[in-house]
Each structure stands twice: as structure tokens, then as C-alpha cells.
């Protein structure tokens, strides 16, 4: 499969050994030109030395993610690649418009299905797909929430396949993580390559915590009269994203609370402090719905807050993201997102979905079963890339085993063509070589919508691999959105577009 390489022009992607020399004078895509010039002028061992420095830096900063079930040392460094992924100003502007449009539609959809259900009555989305969805939360029916905004923080995973082809791979509307890597990666790059930042105009990302705090404050509940008190609710130190929770709370200057720090009296949520109980108005919760309130959801949850859902329904606290957003990012709903954009906004989607076969539809099922070796088949309630079949990478036996699962329960699956994910130059053992990447920008929805330029680029470090998950050998890169001369990218916390 020929992948689109984001640095090099030219028909074929070079093999690793050639790439360094071949791209020297010629064929570098415009966004990478300044970087490449700088790279060519640098001494040969520079990258290797900087990578060592980067490793030390990350260990010192304590940026680790937890991997459980492997025994031994549970803290690991997520691999960081020191070659930036670069996006042109013009490319980003289009993406940003598309992201805002998509998230606006997702929020409208969530409000609709928990209230009027117009999209179901119009027959745009099959009713049972929503109402019988495991991620649909009946308790949220007719609950009024601030600004009718459900997903205040959305992470939209994008992939690129060609110069002008970006696709949304999936939406994350529950508790998307990874933004701390975006911020720390930039911090590390600025420490490692100060001279480079002097030469290339990179749009800053450091104001994300500020934008997030503003978004949260704007989402205060109806019954909040004073300046809202915001806190971040974490499942605790054993959560794999705990580092990020600490980091964001620190950056925003808000309390990082665990379930045990909170208590509910008369439908009002308080935190326990050295000076007594203090009221909380907005909770940026990084805890799944199931664990939130043992009185309403899982009774065995030890990390939740008994009574918080009643406080939520009473309009005394905002939970961010709202309860029940999972139904918007379920894989069975994904194929309908472009229809949501048309239905709620009356616009054509700017960002396309990956063409998707919905196996509950007989035609799609037939096609899929005939083309299994070419397709990626995903379980609709799975996540993390475990319950899936990657046709081109699977043996005949594996394909046949999966075929049986599909035939037994077609509605549990969707299928997509194997995409030729774009590659970016990446510093690996053998030098600089192309590796597949994706991109997760973060979209904030408060009084206005805010998108910090770029996002988190994940990279599959193994040659040929398309799996970018950090649990499966993926790493991250700093993502640069270049600034152009006409309009400096929106860096103020206010709205744009």
C-alpha cells in the first residue's frame, strides 16, 4: 500500500535507507520546507543527542502512563518522537471549521435524543439503535443541563490519506485523554530546539488549560449564583491517565478531587477542605458514567460520589462531560454523524467519515462478507482496537473465525476499507523513516467553541504498523500548525470563525 507522506512529494514513498538522501534537495512538501532546511544544516548526530535529552527530560517531568497487568514497574514513558508533525495554516483552517461543525452537531444530537427525539421521528437514525444502545442512559431522559451542551470536551480522531483527504476515524465524547501529551510535547520541543522555534512560526498551544477553564466556568449550572468553583474529579492515582488529571488541575489552578473528597448534602455537592466544606459548581470529571454515583449507576463503585446524580438533576452542579454522551461516539452511531450535521445544521459536512459498512444493513453485510481480507471490521461496543479484525494483516483462519462471529450477530459490527494512513518522518533506529500517524484535536464547547491549533499526533513506531495506541507500541509527536501572514491563528481564549 502506498501511503501519503506528509513531508515528501513524489509518487512513491521511499524505503527507509533512501529517504534521508533522496529528500535532501528536492521534493519536500511546503509545510516541511523550513524544518527540512534546518535539519539538513544540523550536525549528523544532533537528533540522537536530542533524543537522549528528551528522554531525560520526560523522566524528570514524570510523564508516564500506567500499564497494568504486566507486573513489575507499572510506570512507563510513552515514547516521544522528536520530529514534529507539521500542518499548513490553510489545512488547519479547514480542519478547524470541520471539527466545530461536527461537534456542534454531536451536541445537538445528544440534546435531541434525551429530549424531543426529532431525529428519530424523522427516521434519519433507526430508533432502536439509540434507545436500545448500551451507552444510552435512560436516567438522562428530560434532564435539563446548562447550555444544552453535553460534550464540553471532545477529542476527534482524524486520519489523512492524501493531500486533501482527511477522514474522521472516531469521535470521543466521553472523557477523551491525551491533551497533556500535546502540551508537554510542545514544552519539550521548545526546550530541545529553541533555535528551530525562532525560525519556524508555530502556532502556540500552551493556552489550552486556560481555554478549558473558561469553557468549564461558562458551563456553570443554572443554580450557581457566584463565581463558579470548578474541580477535576479523578478515579485516582491508579488510573492510566492520572498524570494528565494532575497536570490539568495544576495548569488550571483547580482542586483535583477524588470521590472521597466530595460529599452531597441536600442535593448540593461539597468538597472536604481544611477549612470545612466548600461548594463545587462545575466538575470536570474524568470518571466514567458507570462509576459516578453508586446510588444510580454501579452500586459497587467505591470511587464515585453517592447522591451526585440527584444534585445534577436538581441543577446544582455541572458534570463535564455530561452523563450519557457515550451514545454519540458509539461505533454503531458513527456512520450517522454526517447525517446529523445535515439534520441539525442544514450544512454539508466539511469532514468526511471513513466509508463505513453498517452490517445490520443486508447489502453492506453481503459486501463485507465477500471482501473480508481487504476490510477492517470493528465491534460497535469495543474500544482500544481489541475486538477487531484487520483483514490484510490476518490469516485465513483468523478471517474465518471472525466471519462466524459476524454472521452470528451482524448488528454488532461495522466494516471499513483499510486506509492508507499518511506517514510522517520519524526518528527510529535506522535514522529518519516514514511512520503512520493520526491526529486527535480537542474541541471545547462553552459559550463559544474553541480549538487549540493542532492536537495530539500519535505515531505507530513499528515499521508498517497502523496501530497508534500507546498500549500497543504507539508514540506521540509534537504537532505544529504553521501560522500564515494573513491571520494569526486564534490564540486568544475567545471564539473565532
Amino acid at each position, binding site marked *: 500500500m502506498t501511503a501519503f507522506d506528509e513531508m515528501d512529494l513524489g509518487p512513491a514513498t521511499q524505503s527507509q535507507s533512501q529517504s534521508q538522501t533522496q529528500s535532501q534537495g528536492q521534493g519536500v512538501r511546503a509545510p516541511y520546507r523550513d524544518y527540512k532546511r534546518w535539519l539538513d544544516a544540523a550536525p549528523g548526530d544532533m537528533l540522537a543527542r536530542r533524543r537522549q535529552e528528551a528522554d531525560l527530560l520526560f523522566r524528570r517531568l*514524570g510523564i508516564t502512563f500506567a500499564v497494568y497487568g504486566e507486573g513489575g514497574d507499572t510506570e512507563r514513558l510513552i515514547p516521544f518522537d522528536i520530529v514534529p508533525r507539521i500542518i499548513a495554516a490553510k489545512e488547519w483552517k479547514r480542519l478547524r471549521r470541520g471539527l466545530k461543525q461536527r461537534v456542534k452537531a454531536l451536541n445537538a444530537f445528544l440534546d435531541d435524543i434525551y429530549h424531543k427525539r426529532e431525529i428519530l421521528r424523522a427516521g434519519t437514525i433507526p430508533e432502536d439503535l439509540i434507545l436500545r444502545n448500551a451507552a444510552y442512559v435512560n436516567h438522562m431522559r428530560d434532564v435539563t443541563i446548562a447550555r444544552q451542551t453535553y460534550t464540553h470536551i471532545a477529542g476527534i480522531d482524524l486520519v489523512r490519506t492524501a493531500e486533501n483527504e482527511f477522514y474522521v476515524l472516531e469521535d470521543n465524547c466521553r472523557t477523551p485523554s491525551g491533551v497533556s501529551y500535546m502540551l508537554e510535547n510542545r514544552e519539550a520541543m521548545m526546550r530541545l530546539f529553541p533555535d528551530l522555534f525562532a525560525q519556524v512560526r508555530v502556532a502556540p498551544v500552551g493556552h489550552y488549560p486556560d481555554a478549558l477553564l473558561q469553557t468549564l466556568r461558562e458551563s456553570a449550572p443554572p443554580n450557581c449564583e457566584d463565581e463558579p468553583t470548578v474541580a477535576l474529579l479523578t478515579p485516582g492515582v491508579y488510573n492510566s491517565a492520572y498524570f494528565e488529571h494532575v497536570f490539568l488541575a495544576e495548569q488550571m489552578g483547580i482542586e483535583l478531587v477524588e470521590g472521597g473528597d466530595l460529599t452531597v448534602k441536600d442535593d448540593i455537592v461539597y468538597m472536604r477542605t481544611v477549612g470545612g466544606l466548600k461548594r463545587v459548581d462545575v466538575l470536570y470529571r474524568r470518571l466514567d458514567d458507570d462509576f459516578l454515583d453508586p446510588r444510580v449507576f454501579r452500586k459497587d463503585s467505591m470511587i464515585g460520589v453517592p447522591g451526585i446524580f440527584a444534585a445534577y438533576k436538581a441543577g446544582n452542579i455541572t458534570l463535564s462531560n455530561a452523563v450519557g454522551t457515550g451514545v454519540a461516539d458509539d461505533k454503531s452511531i458513527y456512520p450517522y454523524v454526517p447525517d446529523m450535521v445535515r439534520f441539525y445544521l442544514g450544512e454539508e459536512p466539511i469532514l468526511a467519515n471513513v466509508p463505513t459498512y453498517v452490517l445490520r444493513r443486508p447489502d453492506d453485510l453481503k459486501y463485507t462478507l465477500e471482501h473480508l481480507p481487504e476490510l477492517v471490521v470493528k465491534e460497535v461496543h469495543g474500544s482500544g482496537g481489541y475486538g477487531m479484525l484487520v483483514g490484510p494483516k490476518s490469516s485465513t483462519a483468523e478471517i474465518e473465525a471472525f466471519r462466524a462471529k459476524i454472521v452470528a450477530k451482524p448488528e454488532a459490527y461495522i466494516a471499513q476499507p483499510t486506509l492508507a494512513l499518511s506517514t510522517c518522518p520519524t526518528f527510529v533506529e535506522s535514522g529518519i523513516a516514514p511512520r503512520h500517524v493520526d491526529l486527535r484535536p480537542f474541541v471545547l464547547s462553552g459559550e463559544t467553541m474553541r480549538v487549540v491549533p493542532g492536537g495530539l499526533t500519535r505515531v505507530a513506531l513499528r515499521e508498517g504498523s497502523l496501530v497508534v495506541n500507546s498500549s500497543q507500541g504507539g508514540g506521540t509527536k509534537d504537532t505544529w500548525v504553521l501560522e500564515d501572514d494573513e491571520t494569526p491563528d486564534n490564540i486568544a481564549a475567545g471564539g473565532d470563525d
Partner: protein
Amino acid sequence: MLSRAADNLYWLNRYVERAESMARILGVAHRMSMQSTHGGTRNDEWEAALIIAGCDKSFALHGGPATRRAVIDFLAFAPDNPSSIHACLKAGRENARAMRAQITSEAWESINAAWLEMRTFSIAKVEADGFNTFFDWVRERSQLFRGVAEGTMQRDDAYRFMRLGTLLERADSTARILDVKYHVLLPSAADIGGAVDYYQWGALLRSVSAFRIYRQIYRDSIRPLKVAELLVLREDFPRSLHACFAEIVSILQYLRESYRRDYPSVRLAESMLLKLRYDQIDTIFTGGLHEYLTNIIDSNIELGAAIARDFMQPN
């Protein structure tokens, strides 16, 4: 600030201070064992170190004689000894990690770097490289952490609870060192004023960085009474009980003012400070230094419990 955060930060500094105290105790034991002109058996120093650290019983459970190597291994490296330097730095770093939102990144980086480097030490390595290098390293890392916190942190409640942790732990350590050296190892009357005495008390002073200070203040040979006065009653010596309690009280009074609550711990600390302010060393010796120190150690434990009840336990 959250009750849980106050608890974590308080213990963060207690752990770091405890690691430093342990290094001081081991350093002085090591020094004494090299100039063993005293009459006791060769293991006296190491047994005293175990007693001061409050680890004599847990060490005994491990079995084996209290040799230099065994005691240093147990007090510095044993991961299952909750008071070992290893365990203290690990626990301190864990607390700091949980509290990254409350401390400066410099303070976090300092304790994190200390823990990462701690993992590279082992009894075999420090035996080969020299024990003192390691003890000095621990002391320096602790001082560096405190210094970084002092130099970067906002003077908020987070900082105040960290200071409380340092001060309670330090008071406890000073009282124990003095008590054990005086009570357990008090040489027979014939030795008083002799060479043994000089080295014993000199080492004690060194263990709390007070050798030179003693000379400057007293301009006299080293006498138990004056050493005790320095460590218990002098307000200008930073590791003395008086100095520790003066700061503890001022922090607790500040908290009482800012939250306008009646905290029993504040009254307890104030009464302890009053004693330290007005007691005289002669009368303390008449009543018995050991009894006096035991009383302080017990009150200090009670104060720690009262602080926990007032500030750290869920309302």
C-alpha cells in the same frame, strides 16, 4: 485546600525529613564506629542507630547480628522497612506525584529525581563507593527539596502543611537522638569528661549539624548539659525542639486565624511551646532528661494525631 491534600503534603515532608534524619543517624554511627575508643562492644553504635530510628524491634524480627552492613542495609535500603531511606523517598515521591497540582514543578522534579537516583543505590554499591558519599547525598537531596520548595512555592496552605510535616518529624528526630545518646549510651560516671565522652557528644552534635554552632555559642568544651540545652531550649538553633515548636505554633495560629475555627491541636502546640520557652536546663536535668524527652516525644505524637483530626480527617 482539600483535607486529603493537606494530609499528603504533610506526609511528603515528613518522609523526606525522615530520610534525612536516617542518613544523619547512620552517618554518625558510621563515624563513631571508626573511632571506637569507647568501651562497649563493636556493635553498640549500630544498635543505638536502630533504637533511635525506632527500628530495633523490626530489625530483630529479621534476625542476625546488628553489623554495620546489616543495619545500613535495613535502615537505608530495605523496601519492606517503612522507615528506610528507600521507603521514605519512595513514599514521599508517591505523595508528591499525587499532589503535583499543589506543589511547584521544581519541587516535584526535585523529589522525583531523588527517587529515580535512589533506585540506583544498593548496599553493595555504597559499600564499594563509600557510605559517607551516600549519606551526604541523602542529606543534600532532602535539603535541596526543602530549599526548592522554600524558593518556589507560594506561601499558601500547601506550603504550611509541608512545613508542619518537616517540623514535627524534625522535633521527633532531635528528641530521639538526644534521648538515646544520653539515656541508653550514657557512659559510666568515671568516663564523664574523658575522651569517650568527647567523641560521643561530639558525634551527637555533628549528627544534627551543631558542632560548630556549639563552639560558637558556648566557647567551651563539650558538656552534656550544654549539648542538651542547645538541642532542646535554644531558639536560634534550627533543629532544636524550641525552634521547631516556635514555627509549628506560628503556622497553626495562622491556620486558626484564617479559618476562624477552634482547633485543639493549636492549644496543645501552644502549651508545648510555653514549656520549651520557660523551662531551664538545670531543672530539666534535676527531674531527669530522659523523662523530659519521653514526655516531649509522646506529646509530639499526640500533636500529630490532633493535627490529623483537626485538618485531615473528613468533616
